[in-house]
């Protein structure tokens, strides 16, 4: 089993390296190799699952590691930790990853830098698998950073486009802000443990020791918040969520990968992995829950006014991530991971279908997507699968989304009423914006000649549709997957509540209906959103997060930088460096004034010198 897990980890890496060195200029081969690699990893994961299930123990946890930096006070390991959670995530990452790789082969066909694309994609998968398999903090942090790097490279894949390059940088930097917190969290945890004689970064060891010693709660609170800052960065929780919508500048399959299987899932996964730690600090959990709840509604509302199909999906991801984080914050990792799983299916599905649409229609604006025949007819598979994804996202039974969302809502119903209301409100918003999207794209026909070129919209090839169909299947059936064996140790499923189910389904239906009615006839981009919702302006400005950050960067950071630079120039260089030179020259000129050139003055100086010496040494001396 250990060997299998190592194989899963390194296959994508070796693929990436191989492509990097040999196949950069041969895109087709690169694509094939990468996909095969990913598929092989998936098969390994399946084999691992088989082995794992055939083990006799109740909830086996397997671990293996090598010492990477065997330092006496703080040995850093590199290892794998296999338990149910790991295997679940492995399956998600490699499974959905394989589909996305397959899809990409066709999607990226015409791009000449395709080799680079697949190398980065494999690197991305490798980084994510590293996080999943990691058995200690440092390794997690390493791959955490590598995920950031891969996202940077992939979001900025079309780097000639200014926006893409900026978005990649933004993603990297924003998540890095979180990483600063994470690093500090790790360091303070380690610092405390080391002072108690347990110098280790190992999850299992720490978990075990924490049963006998307790960390002082302020410190634990700080540690948890630090770690959560990192998680919030990667999982795009407010206020570090700003990178995610911008990340849509990357190729669509990359978005699918980021939103479904990697990156954003990493944060939630880590939260679940470290739940033993967070569970000990209720105060931290409260912060986490609120962050999740607020992020969910924040993103759900902003999605309502977006016009770019990918951006709508991006905000929906944000709000769904908010759900997951909320569930974990409420002390229910099961619900969170469950939703992570189902969300992975339907969000990948949504993105890939959206990608298929974009591929065919060459636009991302939902106002421009309708065709004369209607998309349902010209691209049936894509449309149907997209619709299935929408249903799952809205949480309509019997799709998978229904079950997972139900368990989160059930968990929320036990928590703070405000949080519960937020969660419910988000159900409505979700279906509203998805309703708006579907109405505009699928249920309207174009009457304008301007869009004639869209006549030609045709269904994509098999490499793109097969992943869609498979994902659609899982989006429907995913809710019935038996996840308990994987997550047993980490929480419980809430008892089913009919009232809650009814309320949520009703809200979802209502939202969709509203949207359908409202946008059925609209064909103008300049819709006026009026008084029955929060002023449109705020939403269009995305609650001013970006503006505030820009202002911060502009007014605070740039000014600190400018002040440093000025200080350097005026004080350190001009004052210290040139100042000492000036002082020397001034003294030098003073010395020069003695050299009057008059020989008598020289003689006088001579005589005075002799006199002083004689006076000091003889007359005032020992007499």
């Amino acid at each position: 089993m250990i060997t299998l897990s190592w194989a899963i980890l390194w296959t994508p890496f070796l693929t990436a390296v191989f492509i990097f060195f040999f196949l950069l200029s041969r895109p087709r081969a690169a694509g094939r190799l990468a996909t095969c690699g990913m598929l092989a990893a998936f098969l390994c994961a399946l084999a691992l699952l088989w082995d794992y299930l055939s083990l006799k123990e109740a909830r086996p946890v397997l671990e293996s590691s090598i010492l990477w930096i065997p330092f006496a006070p703080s040995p850093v390991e590199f290892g794998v930790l296999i338990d149910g959670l790991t295997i679940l995530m492995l399956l998600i990452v490699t499974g959905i990853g394989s589909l996305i790789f397959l899809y990409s082969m066709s999607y990226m066909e015409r791009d000449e830098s395709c080799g680079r694309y697949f190398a980065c994609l494999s690197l991305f998968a490798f980084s994510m698998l590293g996080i999943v398999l990691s058995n200690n903090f440092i390794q997690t942090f390493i791959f955490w950073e590598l995920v950031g790097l891969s996202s940077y490279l992939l979001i900025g894949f079309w780097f000639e486009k200014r926006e893409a390059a900026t978005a990649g940088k933004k993603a990297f930097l924003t998540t890095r802000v979180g990483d600063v917190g994470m690093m500090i969290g790790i360091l303070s945890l380690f610092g405390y443990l080391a002072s108690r004689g347990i110098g280790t970064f190992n999850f299992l060891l720490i978990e075990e020791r924490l049963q006998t010693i307790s960390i002082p709660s302020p410190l634990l609170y700080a540690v948890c918040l630090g770690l959560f800052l990192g998680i919030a960065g990667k999982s795009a929780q407010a206020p570090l969520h700003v990178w995610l919508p911008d990340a849509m500048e990357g190729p669509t399959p990359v978005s699918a990968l980021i939103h479904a299987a990697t990156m954003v899932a990493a944060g939630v996964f880590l939260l679940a992995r470290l739940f033993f730690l967070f569970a000990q600090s209720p105060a931290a959990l409260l912060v986490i829950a609120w962050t999740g709840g607020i992020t969910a509604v924040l993103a759900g509302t902003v999605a309502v006014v977006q016009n770019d199909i990918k951006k709508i999906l991006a905000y929906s991801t944000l709000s769904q991530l908010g759900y997951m984080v909320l569930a974990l914050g409420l002390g229910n990792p099961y619900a969170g991971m469950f939703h992570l799983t189902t969300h992975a299916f339907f969000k990948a599905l949504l993105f890939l279908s959206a990608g298929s649409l974009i591929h065919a229609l060459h636009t991302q604006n939902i106002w421009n997507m309708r065709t004369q025949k209607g998309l349902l007819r010209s691209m049936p598979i894509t449309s149907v699968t997209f619709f299935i994804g929408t249903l799952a996202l809205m949480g309509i039974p019997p799709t998978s989304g229904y079950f997972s969302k139900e368990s989160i809502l059930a968990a929320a119903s036990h928590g703070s009423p405000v949080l519960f209301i937020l969660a419910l409100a988000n159900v409505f918003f979700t279906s509203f914006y998805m309703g708006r999207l579907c109405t505009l794209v699928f249920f309207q026909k174009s009457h304008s000649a301007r869009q004639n070129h869209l006549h030609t919209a045709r269904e994509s090839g098999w490499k793109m549709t097969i992943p869609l169909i498979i994902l659609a299947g899982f989006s429907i059936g995913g809710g019935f997957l038996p996840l308990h064996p994987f997550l047993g140790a980490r929480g419980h499923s809430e008892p089913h509540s009919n009232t809650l189910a009814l309320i949520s389904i009703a809200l979802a239906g209502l939202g969709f209906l509203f949207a359908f009615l409202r946008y059925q006839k609209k064909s103008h981009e300049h819709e006026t959103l009026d008084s029955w919702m929060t002023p449109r302006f705020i939403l269009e400005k995305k609650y001013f997060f970006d503006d505030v950050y820009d202002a911060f960067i502009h007014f605070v950071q740039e000014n600190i930088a400018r002040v440093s630079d000025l200080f350097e120039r005026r004080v350190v260089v001009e004052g210290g460096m040139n100042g000492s030179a000036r002082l020397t020259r001034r003294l030098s000129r003073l010395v020069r004034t003695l050299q009057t050139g008059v020989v008598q003055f020289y003689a006088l100086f001579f005589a005075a010198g002799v006199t002083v010496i004689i006076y000091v040494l003889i007359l005032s001396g020992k007499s």
Partner: protein
Amino acid sequence: MIFLLTWIPFVAAFLILLTPSEKKSALPIIAKTACLLTFLLTIGFLWRFRPDQPGYQFLIRIEWFPAFGIAYQAGLDGINMTLCLLHALVSLAGVFTAAREKKRLKEYLFFYLILVGAIYGVFTCLDLFFLYLFYETTLIPLYPMIGIWGSKNKEYGAMQLTLFITAGAALALFGILLLYQKTGFGTFDLIRITEHLKNAPFAAHDQNFLAALILIGFGVIASLWPLHSWSPIGYAAAPTSVSMLHAGVLKKMGPYLILRIALACLPAGMAHWSTLLAVLSGIGILYAGYAAISQKDLKFMVGFSSVSHMGYVLLGIAAMTVTSVSGAVLLMFSHGVMAAAMFAVIGFIYEQTHARGVFDFGGLGKKAPFISMSFIMASLASLGLPGFSNFVAELLIFIGSWEKSPVLVGLAVLGVLITAIYLLRAVQHVCYGEFNPKWNQLKDAVTWQEKFPFVLLLGALLLFGFWPQGLLRLIQPAVGAMLP
């Protein structure tokens, strides 16, 4: 054997002096051969180095000036083995850049080889006199190299750099002489002095005074805030291969000598100043980072960045734990290689375009993929990305220093973010975006001679990023033996 490291370059320099300057083709061959030989020699030493064996290896000792207890004594332990490797890498990479110099090539290579040999001298010698001798010898070639072959304000930069480092060195010389005087058995033999002081340390106030002298003196070249200002100015002025060697290797002599003299011989004095040193390093990290943000010249940016990174090194040294000091040594290596790669990239572009503003370029990623990739990789290494040895080094520094000064480590972690800000900005403006047609003439690195330096340096960073133990197994025992 070990003296060959120093003397091969000197002899080669002499050979170059004898070669008539018309024989343009022979000059680079001599220089490259010398650097390659020393490189191979260093690898050989690395190969035969036994990390588990305590003390210095390959020790040689030639009585030199017995009246003053001076001996030509050289040897390697894990720390200077690492630094020799760093120098071997950077000097070999640098000579390929140096050999492309068009103006007065003969003199340039002559000075370059003198510089290379003297640096080996500093890193191998274990006698305070010779340490200082080689340390100052590096100044002889630096002034003309920067002054003649440099760019932008070169005279000013050369003068500042030389004077600052000399002033620091003079103070350090004072410290060394005091140390010599106070140990009282008339020897400059560093091994004996260290051993002696382990058993019979000086009184506290003596240690404090001496440590202060050493710290300030060698702190100048380590660009300890606020003594750093020569460094961005000097690097901006220097020609590429000098920037590479200086930022990459010479700067590391400061922390190295602080380790060797202040930390090993005067631990109590070091401990006395450690808080102050840590605070200054912390200020340096953030200050230089922010200053780098507002630079418009790539070389200035990298210059400030190197100040910022040396802050990490000094922070690690100030914490005085095995982990942090090992991290500091590893960072000296990693940052050296990284900085060299960075300056090589900038130099490569500057050579052809005579521009090096952050905003002068754009879209080089398409036009010159190899160079852009090198630039990106060097940036990533610099901002502490895992996979490059810089990450491991910074991590060790953080872990090792956390207990002493959590606040400063927190700020230092923030510094990593600041590094990312300016480097990614630079990468974006240089490599990404639309191609600036002004640079249509720009050629990517094509021949192996052009590519070799980058492959060598970045390869080393990656190698030890994946396998840090390769260096740490050398560094850690040596550091362990050095710390009280």
